């Protein structure tokens, strides 16, 4: 299964970095959409099928927390897998985001951290991800 991913971050550099990490991670990707704030992100979700949302918090126009609240209030997106990728360090705010069903990856992040979180959130197992481990045959008959 290939995942359609939406990356919402007001920093073009960070969006590029996240997308680069996604591509390097080996997670099967379908379409990758980008948006510069929560409002743009909601618009993309109205138009496109998305399996996974990577969301920043501090953004102009509509921040990530507000976007997440609106997603959860909409029956069509209430179950969407969400990973908050943010510099956010407030435990109070992080707890709120987790209560809204988001997983958290703090910036700066190691690529493996983001990859492992994506695998966990999407339910892709290591076997699906790496493929079945081939077993060498010795051609012996039993």
């Amino acid at each position, binding site marked *: 299964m290939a995942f359609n991913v939406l990356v919402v971050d*007001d*920093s*073009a*550099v*960070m969006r*590029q*970095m996240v997308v*680069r990490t996604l591509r390097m991670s080996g997670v099967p990707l379908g379409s990758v959409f980008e948006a510069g704030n929560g409002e743009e992100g909601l618009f993309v979700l109205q138009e496109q099928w998305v399996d996974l949302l990577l969301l920043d918090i*501090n953004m*102009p126009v509509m921040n990530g927390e507000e976007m997440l609240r609106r997603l959860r209030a909409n029956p069509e997106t209430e179950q969407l897998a969400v990973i908050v990728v*943010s*510099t*956010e*360090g*407030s*435990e*109070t*705010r992080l707890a709120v985001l987790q209560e809204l069903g988001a997983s958290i990856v703090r*910036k*700066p*992040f*190691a690529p493996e951290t983001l990859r492992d979180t994506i695998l966990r959130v999407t339910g892709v197992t290591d076997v699906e991800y790496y493929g079945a481990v081939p077993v060498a045959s010795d051609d012996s008959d039993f």
Partner: protein
Amino acid sequence: MSSTTAQSLSRATTATFEELALLFPETELSPEQAAAPLDVGVSVEFRGPLTGRLVVRASQTILPAIAANMLGEEESKQLPLQRDALGEIGNVICGHVLPLIAGADKIFNLAAPVIHESGVLPQRDRDRPAAVVQVGVEDGRAEAVLYIFAGAAAGTASAA
């Protein structure tokens, strides 16, 4: 709060360069690094229990390496992306340092990073900084300066 603030800023700056830019900042600057100009600046304003600004100034010469590690070799040649990469460094240092100095339960709102060409910074930044950190990076240097305008008394402290 001074020495703690400086240590926190030093920790946040080092961690950000290491983890985000995959570069290893040196706290002991070589003569060449110390002489390198700080010709590009970025500032990030924050509001919350503390109000202020985090400024990162850097030598232009280190920006391609930062951008290359963050974005890839091809993108690193584009000047606007080099500036944006430094902006993101400033944003992450700011997000990292505030919970360290104000407490992990406090909520801050960070504005988008603003780039200052030639390292010329806003008038307000002539105020006394709460903490200053300098690190050597590649053949240049970077400086992180934390200004706190409201919310706490700010004494100058520095960490190298």
